[in-house]
């Protein structure tokens, strides 16, 4: 249940985190949607680590890649929109964590696994995908949509009794 007794700092941190992750998801989705040449195939085929068979298997079939592309783009946009507007936070955060887990497992930053994808930092076991995944868990565990978000209207209409 949503706790409305967060301190100002806590609320700022939690809502801020939610909006920033939402922004990130939405923009990643929109960019892919606007680029007619974008495809997840290269990403899938470059997969490394213990699940590379699965990812490369998906990447081999143009039909499945087409479905994967569609699902990825619209899932990212939907997750972004729900996080930003503040409704259905739990399923959105859960779906986002699931996607991030796939991204993490496609290129796991484990010792001994060479990745062909260039990275801008140095990572061992922990990388930004994993951190964003846990940040989404925070967003899910400490909901804020009833304070800042569309869910506020639903709370109001059902839980504010006439007191006079």
């Amino acid at each position, binding site marked *: 249940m949503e706790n409305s007794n967060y301190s100002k700092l806590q609320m700022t941190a939690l809502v801020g985190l939610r909006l920033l992750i939402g922004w990130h998801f939405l923009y990643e989705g*929109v960019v892919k949607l606007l680029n007619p040449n974008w495809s997840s195939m290269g990403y899938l085929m470059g997969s490394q680590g213990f699940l590379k068979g699965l990812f490369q298997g998906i990447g081999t079939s143009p039909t499945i890649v087409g479905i994967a592309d569609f699902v990825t783009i619209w899932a990212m946009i939907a997750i972004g929109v729900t996080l*930003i507007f503040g409704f259905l936070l739990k399923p959105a955060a859960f779906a986002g964590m699931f996607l991030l887990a796939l991204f993490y497992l496609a290129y796991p930053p484990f010792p001994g696994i060479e990745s062909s994808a260039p990275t801008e930092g140095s990572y061992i076991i922990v990388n930004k995908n994993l951190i964003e995944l846990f940040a989404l868990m925070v967003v899910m565990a400490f909901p804020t949509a009833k304070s800042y978000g569309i869910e506020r209207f639903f709370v*109001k209409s059902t839980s504010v009794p006439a007191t006079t």
Partner: protein
Amino acid sequence: MSEQQDKKGFSRRDLLKGLVGIPIVGGLFTAAYAKYTSDAKVKSTILSGLDIKAVAPPSSGPMSGNAIRLGVIGFGIRGKQLMRALGFADKKWKEEMIEATKKNPNDTRLKDFMGQENLNVQIRGVCDVFDTYGEMAVETGTVDGNKPTRYRTYEELIASPDIDAIVIAAPDHWHAPMAIAAARAGKHVYVEKPMTHNISETYELYNTIHESGIVFQVGHQHRQTQSFLTAIDALNKGSLGHISLIQTNTNRNDDNGAWQYEIHEAANPKTVDWNQFLGNAPKIPYNGEHFFRWRKWWEYGTGLSGDLLTHDFDRINCLLKMGIPKTIVASGGVYTHNDGRDVPDVFQVVMEYPEFKMTTSQEQGKEKGMTFMYSATLGNQYNRGTILMGHDATMELGNSMIIYADPRSTRYADWLKDGTATADVPLYSYDPRAKGLDGVTSATAKYFADKGLLFTYRDGKRVDSTHLHMREWLSCIRNGGKPSCGIEEGFQEAIAAHMGTLSLKTGRRVEWDATARKIVGFENAAIDNILVSTGKISV
């Protein structure tokens, strides 16, 4: 709550907090739109400025009508590849490919072969001096009730009245004698590179082809590579400015790449017609090393010059039509495979074109001349790309094509100044693979693939370039027209290669007299002797 509430029971604060997403999404889309339009503007400025047409080349004519009746000479490594390009795969290869596909589902070689267009040809005759290969060729060419005849000699095959055209995949020292005999008999010819083994036969073949009027194609299949056709358009539109230096390379580091081919266990003096193999080469007793690894000796092969420099020379010649160089200097040695071979495994050639001119962005007359460099080692496979260096930009060329603006370019000065172009991000890149990926196995195969020698793309689909090259030849036979690598191109390729070997062996700078159309300072017969002799010559 003390604030004033609207009639639905929500305060202004409720609205602000509830709709916090709207300004955020608005901000995101404003920023995204600004970035998108600015990126699109840069892209359209560059694309319309360069005006490079990345269109697929027109397909050669229809393959309809009567089947063309072919005779194939040589069923070794290349002969088998040529037969596959024609639509006939040997059983052993098919079995290997089924295994390869099982091991690696990304390996599409079998699928590509099965998807190849039917070229409407029949293999009527085959000839290979090794019984095992000869019989394999018969088996491979047997389709739909048509069984090719195995001829014992190439003369008999050429003389056969039910053969229209000849494919020659014999060792280098047999290319010209077979092609000349076929042309004199009025048979069309597809001959592997290099076109000839020495100078005299280069002139003889040239004259014979002109007199015979047959359709003649040299096997430089990269002429079909889609990226090369796009590169030609880019160069014609001056995207590089004046090119002063071209760098091409061969880098291999495996036995196959160093011509250490497998010696077939069934080969012996009884199963190999050794005398016929030797032909004009010195008479020596049979040995499997010379028979299967003939590329390692000058008597049969043409070394790195004829074997691999010719590919790079012709790739560039097809882009720039620069022809035979004014002078050539070459050097090299046997440095990585001291196994008794006498052709070098490390080899460099520098060709000078003092009169070479291109579209320029600078004042007329300032730029003239170009150097073409070829550098090869069979002891390291670090990938050094093919690089064309112009005043305005650098082009890196393989199956894909990338152009980088030069920081000091005249043509792109404004773009570099306002940030439309930067030197470290490609100005233009063209990759016909688009969304596809390739499963290529051996290291040597990868090297070729990178150069556009193994396969190319049509409508995003991977196609064997040799298949397209042979298709073009067959189309010219059927529908008329001129093959892209005919006798003129073959002559230039062969002369340049032989000049390289001549320079290597004599330690001299070798000069071409374009008016007299001959190599300066040598009689043809003398050059022929030098080309097949072992070791350094003193002149």
